C-alpha cells in the first residue's frame, strides 16, 4: 500500500487558486502553532520549579495585549478577503457556461443534458469549457462534492443550487455525496468524466462513452495539445462482457442497494443480494416460484415491481427503463451471471 497524496489533484484553475490559499493558511497555522507551543515548551523547561527560584511578578502588559488583538485581526481580515475573492470566482459562472441538470435521489445521481440525454452515475462534461450544474433533489438533502475541483454544494429538495467549473484534466474524477442522506449515503458516488472535444462531440450524438482512465493518471498529460486519440486508444482494449457489466453495476448505482457477494466490493443490502442467484429458483411474495434467468433479470431491472421476492413488502428500486442501454443491460446480466 502506498502512502496517499496529501491533497487531491487540482483539476481546475479555481482549484489551483484554492490550493495557494490553503497552503498559505497551512503555513501560517504551522507558524502560530510553533510560536505558541514552542513558547510553552520553552517556558516549561526554562521555568520548571526549582529550589529557591524566584518567580516574576506582573499582572498584565498593555502593549503586548494590544498586539495580541491587533496582529491577528489584521491577518484574519486579510485571510477573509482572500477567501472571499476565491469564493466569489467559484460562485459566478460565465454566462456561456454549459448547463447540466443534476438530480439527487436516495441513493444515486441522475444527470440530464440539454440534448435530452439522461445518464445515471456518470456525468460527462467537455474539457476546457465552463460547465454549470443546476441541481435539485427528489427526496432529502444531498451534496454534490468533487474534491478534484474543490467545489461542493448541497442539493436541496424544493430549491435549486448550482456549482460551476471548467475542467482542465481529462479522465474520471470522483464525486461524493457529502450530506448524510440515509442508509446508502456512503455509496452514493458518481464519476465525473471529462471528455476531449472529439469524445464530447460523439457523446452529444448519442454515442456511448467507454470507461476513461482516472484523472489522477492524466494529470501528467494535462497539456491539451496531446493527441486525443491516445486516450481513446486506451479504452478500446477488449474487455469481457462481465467486466463491463461490473462497471455498469457500479456506475448505475446498483451497488448502492445490492450486494454482489464480493467482500472487497461493498454493496448494501437494501435489495436482495445478487450473488449466485442466476439460474436458481426464487420464491415470490405471492407464493409463486420463478426461475431467475436472463429474461427475469431484464424484466426486474426495467420494471422492478413486476416480481416481488418473498420478504419484500414493496419495491423501492427505481425503474431503469430507458436509462440503461441494451449493451449495458447485456453486460449487466453477464456480470450477474458471473457472480458466484
Amino acid at each position, binding site marked *: 500500500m502506498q502512502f496517499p497524496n496529501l491533497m487531491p489533484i487540482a483539476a481546475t484553475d479555481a482549484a489551483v487558486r484554492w490550493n495557494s490559499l490553503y497552503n498559505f493558511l497551512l503555513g501560517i497555522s504551522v507558524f502560530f502553532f510553533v510560536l505558541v507551543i514552542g513558547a510553552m515548551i520553552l517556558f516549561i523547561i526554562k521555568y520548571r520549579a526549582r529550589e529557591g527560584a524566584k518567580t516574576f511578578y506582573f499582572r498584565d502588559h498593555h502593549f503586548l495585549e494590544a498586539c495580541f488583538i491587533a496582529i491577528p485581526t489584521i491577518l484574519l481580515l486579510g485571510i477573509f478577503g482572500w477567501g472571499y475573492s476565491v469564493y466569489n470566482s467559484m460562485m459566478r459562472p460565465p454566462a456561456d457556461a454549459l448547463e447540466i441538470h443534476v438530480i439527487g435521489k436516495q441513493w444515486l445521481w441522475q444527470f*440530464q443534458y*440539454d440534448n*435530452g440525454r439522461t445518464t445515471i452515475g456518470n456525468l460527462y462534461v467537455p474539457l476546457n469549457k465552463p460547465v454549470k450544474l443546476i441541481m435539485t433533489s427528489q427526496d432529502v438533502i444531498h451534496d454534490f462534492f468533487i474534491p478534484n475541483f474543490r467545489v461542493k454544494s448541497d442539493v436541496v429538495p424544493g*430549491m435549486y443550487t448550482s456549482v460551476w467549473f471548467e475542467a482542465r484534466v481529462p479522465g474520471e474524477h470522483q464525486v461524493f455525496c457529502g450530506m448524510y442522506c440515509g442508509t446508502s449515503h456512503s455509496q452514493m458516488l458518481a464519476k465525473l468524466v471529462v471528455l476531449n472535444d472529439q469524445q464530447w462531440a460523439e457523446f452529444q450524438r*448519442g454515442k456511448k462513452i467507454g470507461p476513461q482512465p482516472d484523472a489522477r493518471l492524466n494529470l501528467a498529460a494535462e497539456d491539451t495539445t496531446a493527441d486525443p486519440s491516445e486516450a481513446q486508444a486506451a479504452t478500446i482494449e477488449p474487455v469481457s462482457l462481465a467486466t463491463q457489466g461490473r462497471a455498469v453495476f457500479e456506475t448505475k448505482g446498483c451497488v448502492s442497494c445490492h450486494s454482489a457477494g464480493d467482500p472487497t466490493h461493498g454493496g448494501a443490502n437494501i435489495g436482495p443480494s445478487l450473488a449466485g442467484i442466476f439460474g436458481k429458483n426464487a420464491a415470490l411474495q405471492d407464493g409463486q416460484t420463478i426461475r431467475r434467468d436472463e429474461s427475469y433479470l431484464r424484466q426486474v431491472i*426495467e420494471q422492478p415491481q413486476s416480481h416481488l421476492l418473498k420478504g419484500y413488502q*414493496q419495491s423501492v428500486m427505481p425503474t431503469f427503463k430507458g436509462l440503461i*442501454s*441494451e449493451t449495458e443491460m447485456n453486460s449487466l446480466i453477464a456480470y450477474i451471471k458471473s457472480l458466484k
Partner: protein
Amino acid sequence: MSNNDHSNHPHHNQDHSHHHIVSTKTALTVAGSLFFLTVLTVVVSRVDLGVWNFPVAMLVATVKALLVMMFFMDLIHDAPENSVIFGAGFLFLVIFFILTASDLFFRGNVYVKAGTPLVATSGRSSLKNPWISTPELVSHGKELFSQNCVTCHGPEGLGNGVAAAGYNPPPRNFHSQTGWINGRKPSNIFKTLKEGIPGSGMASFGTLPIDDRWALAAYVVSLNSERPASDTQEDVAKIGYDLKTGLAAGGARQEEKTIPIEFAIERMAVAEPAPAHGALGANERGFTSVGGQLYQARCAQCHGEHGEGGVRVRSLGGMPKAYITTAPLLANRESLKSADAFNHVVENGLTGREMPGSADLSGGELSELYTHVKWLAGQLH
C-alpha cells in the same frame, strides 16, 4: 413552626416597604391606553398605507408591550439591570431574525426566472434538410432504435418486442404497409415521435434531440420494403419545421424543454373550486398510504382531491391562455385498465393534453400510485 427554627433565621419577614406598588389609578390609565391602542391598530389596518401598514402595526404593538412592561410589570421602578436583562431577550431575537433574513431574503435565483425557458435548449437542427435520408442518418437511427424502441417494437421492428404483449393496440409492425395512424412519411413519423399516439402505448419521445428523431424516422422508413412517398415542403411545414431557421415546430423552445414535475404542476393548475364530494373523506386514505401522498402531491392539483376532475388546467405551450378541463378518473379509462398502461401514461405524460410525465417515480411508487388511483376510481360513481 417552632420558635427554635425561627431563631436560626433572624432576618425572616424583612419587609420591603421600599418596594414600589402600582397604584390602581396608574393601572386603570394604562389599561385604558391599551384599549385605545387596540382600537387604533384595528382602524389603521383598514386604511391602506402601502408599505407603512406593517411598521405602524408593529409600532403600536411595541408601544402597548412597553406600557405593559413599564407599568404592569413595573420595570420603571425596578433595578435597571432587570431592564437590561429583559431588553437583551428582544435584542437577540432581532439578531436572530436579521441574520436569518440575510440568507433567505438574499438567495440568488439560481434557476431561471419565471417566463424564460427552464432549460435553455435550442430547438435547432444541426442537419440540413433532415427529412432526407442518408446512410449515416439511418445507422445512427438504428443505434437509437436499439436503445429506445426494441422493448416494444422488437429488434427487427416487427412489433414483437418483449413488452409488446402488454399493449392494446399492439405496437406497430414497421414492415406492414397499412394501419399507420399518422402516415408513413419521415415527417409523419417525426410527428408521432414528437407527440406519441394518444390512446395507444406509443408515448411521446419529445425528449429525444431533434436530430435523433429525424434519424429514427429515417431508420424506421428504411425497414419497410415499400418506400413511402418523399416529404414535400408542405409536409415538413405541417409539422412546424421552419425551413429558414431550422427550428423545429413553432415554439420549439417550449416543445423541447423538460421541466421538473412539481414546477409543471405549480405553473399549470388554476384555482378553480372542485365539485364537492362531501361523502368522500378527504383524508381517510389521502395521507395514510404512499400512493395517497403521491397523489396529493402530484396529481390532485389537476385531477381533483378525489380524482373527480373538473379542474381547469392552463396550457403551458404556445397558447398560455387556453384551458382544458380534466375529466373524472373513471375506472373504464384505458389508462386504468392495466398497471402497464397506467405506468406508461404517468411516466411519459400525454402530449397535447397537458399531462406532464413523472419519469422520476420509482417502480414501487408507481405501483402504490396505481393502487390509490384505482381505489379513487372505485369511489366515483
